[in-house]
């Protein structure tokens, strides 16, 4: 009987633990996404234009890495932009270059975050 009782207890414990793991995973995913968004903090250091194009210096002063997902110039996608860093680490600078030199509003998207620069 003791063996039967221990088997039932063990089985139920496994089911309960699995349940805890599932709930914990959902909570972790949600909180990690929130933390990721909250930790992406970018600021504009400088923006310059010359004959070779426009340059924007960004600084990541947050605590999570970020990645430039899209760049828009005056509401339209800028197809010819390049970045000096595919991933912007916390505490590091990144330069975004556009071949277009015309003035306008540049919007740089980092996932759900954005930064607007007037060139």
């Amino acid at each position, binding site marked *: 009987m003791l063996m039967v*009782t221990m088997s039932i207890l063990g089985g139920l414990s496994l089911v309960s633990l699995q*349940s*805890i793991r599932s709930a914990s995973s959902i909570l972790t995913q949600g909180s990690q996404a929130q933390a990721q968004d909250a930790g992406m903090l970018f600021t504009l250091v400088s923006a310059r234009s010359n004959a070779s194009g426009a340059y924007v210096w960004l600084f990541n002063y947050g605590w999570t890495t970020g990645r430039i997902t899209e760049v828009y110039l005056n*509401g339209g996608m800028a197809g010819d932009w390049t970045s000096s860093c595919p991933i912007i680490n916390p505490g590091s600078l990144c330069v975004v270059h556009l071949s277009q030199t015309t003035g306008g509003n540049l*919007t740089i998207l980092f996932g*759900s975050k954005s930064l607007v620069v007037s060139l």
Partner: protein
Amino acid sequence: MITRRAAVAELYATLVVISITFSMSYVIYSELSAPRTGDRLVFLNRTSVIEGPPELVLLQVNVSKPTTLVSVQIDNISASSGILALGLNGYANSPTPCGSGLVTFFSVRTSAPAQLNLRSNGETWMGGYWSNAGAVGVGWTEVMINNASSCSVSVPGGTISTLPLSGTNESTNFRLFLPVASGTHYALLMFTGGFDKVAFSA
């Protein structure tokens, strides 16, 4: 006799332990069971403001299960009643794909890659770019026409849809570019199986 009494006592004790175990396990399991959404759709919305002019909001919706966007309503103006447009007095329906002082936004739908040509006396935006012509892939390509009194939309083999949608319309990810004016606005997105209400502002 003593052996039989001991066996009965052990049986009763075991039964008591089992019943206590079942009761406690039921209480714990019922409290800690994983959240389940069942057949309901769960939406995760992300909005990003894109400076213009015109100022745009990129609305990205992730849905828990593949679904289809059926209708879009912005500030109680429904795309089911006509092409959506943003003017000085806010959102409205436009009977034509363009209008003076309006930013109209809709999409073209193609079942095969095609050439999209937009002719107007205003500004034209297609698939994210300020352009008046280009190749479009299979699916939905969003179009905006800014401040044009006359226009024509040509996409061989395609149709115009009043839903301002990019990509595919049976998916878990949806992207909508919406022109936006000052103040807070509300978009009501009707999907098969649920709806999503999103507040956005410039």
